[in-house]
């Protein structure tokens, strides 16, 4: 692609190149969702600079990237979303009927933050989930990072959150 210099990481460009191969040459736009996913994977959110870099890399106008990025709820546009873990509790109809409000309340109490906020230690981002995640049969459910967890109870939530937290802290220890 035309971009000679880019702030995209090697991992991101590799991923994008892999997708680009699947589409005709002048259809950079087709690789856009995947490109943004690659950036999300690295940064946990899409900064304007990265979106601009994706636009340049794919030969799209910047606004075309913003449009897509702001449309899908799987993309986060604010830096605060760049926590180590992302929690998304579905509050759509089936989950709501099966008690998602309690789950939300429980998480908010446990972490001391509201939906849409990030814990001060940067461990958790509690996303506002607006749409059904298509796991109604296991309602109430949440998505923790990339994994679906169904039939939630407060206990189960504790276990899951503590599980990822300890792993994260462990990792931190290894590093230091």
């Amino acid at each position, binding site marked *: 692609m035309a971009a000679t210099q880019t702030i995209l990481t090697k991992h991101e460009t590799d991923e994008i190149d892999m997708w680009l191969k699947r589409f005709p040459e002048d259809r950079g736009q087709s690789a856009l969702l995947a490109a943004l996913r690659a950036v999300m994977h690295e940064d946990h959110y899409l900064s*304007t600079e990265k979106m601009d870099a994706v636009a340049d890399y794919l030969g799209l106008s910047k606004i*075309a990237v913003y449009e897509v990025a702001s*449309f899908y709820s799987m993309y986060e546009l604010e830096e605060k979303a760049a926590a180590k873990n992302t929690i998304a509790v579905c509050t759509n109809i089936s989950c709501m009927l099966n008690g998602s409000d309690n789950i939300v309340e429980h998480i908010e109490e446990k972490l001391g933050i509201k939906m849409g906020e990030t814990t001060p230690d940067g461990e958790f981002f509690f996303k506002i989930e607006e749409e059904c995640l298509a796991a109604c049969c296991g309602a109430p459910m949440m998505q923790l990072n990339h994994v679906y967890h169904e039939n939630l109870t407060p206990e189960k939530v504790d276990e899951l959150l503590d599980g990822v937290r300890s792993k994260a802290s462990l990792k931190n220890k290894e590093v230091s």
Partner: protein
Amino acid sequence: MSNTDKQFVTITINDKEIEAVPGSMLIDVADKSDIHIPRFCYHKKLSVAANCRMCLVDVEKAPKPLPACATPVNEGMVVWTKSERALTAQKDTMEFLLINHPLDCPICDQGGECELQDLSMEFGSGTSNFHEMKRVVVDKDIGELVATEMTRCIQCTRCVRFGEEIAGMREMGATGRGDRMEIGTFVEKSLDSEISGNIIDICPVGALTAKPSRYHSRAWEMMQTPSIASHDCVGSNVKLHTFKKKLVRVIAAENEDINECWISDRDRFSYQGVYADDRVEKPMIKYNGIWKEVDWSTALDRTVEKLTEVSAKDIAVLASARATLEELYLLQKSMRSIGVANIDHRLRQVDFNDQESSGAYPSLGMKIADIENLDSILLVGSNVRKEQPMINQRIRKAALNGAKIMCVNPLELDFNYDVDAQRVSNPVEMIKTLAIIAKASYILSKTEIPAGLNDLFTSVRLNKADKVFAENLIASKNSAVFLGSISMQHPGYSTLRALSKAIAGNTGSTLAYLSGASNSAGAWLAGVVPHQKEAGQKADIIGKNAGEMLSKTKKVYMLLDLELERDSDNPQQAKAAMNQADTIIAVTPYANKTLLSLADIILPSAAYAETSGTYVNAEGTWQSFKAAAKSYGEARPAWKILRVLGNKLDVKGFDYVSSKDVRNELQGLCENVNNENPVSVEGIYTKLDDVTSQSLYRIGNVGEFSGDSLVRRATALQKSNPEQNAVQLNAKQAALLGLKDLPTVDNEHAEKEVMVDVKQGEVVVSMPLLINDNIPDKCALLASGTKSSSLLGSAFGEIEITA
């Protein structure tokens, strides 16, 4: 044509039988038959979005109302646009559209000319079933030209489609989703497109309005006068809006043959310059270095005295090609009748060697609308996108239709379409680049090379890849070679022109000139060139050209609407000539400091929109306009000033009553003018020294908003384009000067400004430096006509830059 050959289908709208082209959209067919269907998102020049649903109509056998903008007509279709079902659908749509629309019409600039307001009068209900909170959209500043109030947006996406389909650069978009979808730029950014202002015209509501005229007056208080834009050789049709006889706004007028329904930002917002601080109110004469206001007859008598007390050989007459045809003709006729032969309008031209070979006037050689149908185009020294945005629109259409676009320029330019072959080289090399293409055209067309070109051709080598230019042109049925304004300012213009002629001739292409000003063609036809009288007739005595008049001082200068330090190729030289002259007479709406210090008599003329007149555009169309605004103080239309001057000089046949009389006289004389551009080539005249490795070469084509006195005073446009006042180098060249980490042209939020000293001749000027990697090595882009360049020398020539 009859119905049977299936060219047409017959449909019925509201019981009226209508013939229509099969496949065309219902709304189009209805429009052509004057049946009005309400709409918001539909625009005849844009793709169909069908998202507003305002155009729902009742179609027989359809289970529900259909959107007329997205319903193709079929044989036998029966449609009602005002049946109960149609009206209910339209009313309901209206209610939905108004759910989130604020009730701020009393403070909205669009009020009174708002499509939403009009249609809600027609279809809206007095009450709404929606009692919840309306949504609010937080605005972003999108620059100096377009004001936003996005809470008012009804998301028709006209502005978004305009960006993508017409401007060729997407700047507005729809971000977010559902009821939170917003139209805008998403990030804070100024619109960059040279035609961005058109979104003001197409926005059906008050979401996008003109920033400079915001809150100046209400739509119903303004008078509308059709007129012609004055900044490029297109002559876009505009409507001037005046409030209490003052020009407050300009919008596009439709003319399919010329500007379709768009205008450039320059043509839309330049009107601000009319009311600049330095307008002249009264005639003035300088006595012993002190200006005194005088009455008209004193001023004119003095002018006559000055013009008659010297020999005609010592008089130089220079005019702006933005002056009207009438003004230019009266100037020429009166001056030639007192024996003055030195008369010219080509102040930015340097190389006059082949002026005889222009024909009656350098023309487009075709109709503007025909550009769309070209299959291949070679642009030689032309930044057409900024210089003639509406011509660029046509080229863009051709490109989208598959035409091959090629160009040879002294810097890489941003086009809003794909360019198939582009050669960029410094201005001197550019001649060789073009020579290579020309040589290929001789070889490929098996034409004998004229002796005059031999030397140049033997000095260049032809590679295989260079043949593509000539090959494309030869292979195309409709092809053209465009000579742009950069070429005309080029010190080797006659050579570039000879080569362009050769290429055009050998490849069977049309030679098309894209001249600089709105009335360049008119200036030629009026005889404001030293070698031709009106209508292209040979002059009895060939006078001095603009370059000669400014390099060797004449005793008396007569200037029409000119600011020599900004309008001529070499401001230093022009000022030196003025300094030594005995008398300078200026017919001008404005008097800046330089003019006040140089001139001796100032005759205040009416500015743009304050006078009637005619412009002849590049294709040769004569477009007349009336005055729309009251002229300032005692300023008079220049044609009247010149007519009285002519009377005082006892010129015969000078008793015109209106500008129309003048036009008619000239038009009669021009009846048989041929607007074909000659393409015969004998040889070349100008040789340029190579750019030496020591120095920098200036590329000084006219800035986007610095070409004439009016646009230079248009404050919003000036603010919107700070880059044109900077000197620009590529990063490598800047590094050679020891400069690093510099702001670039496209980074509008650059925090620091880096100033450098630019030296040309003896003068050093400090100005900001920007990095632009589109500029070749050893070159610096520094636009003409700007404030900083008004102290410098020739637009193309050596300069020095020091950190």
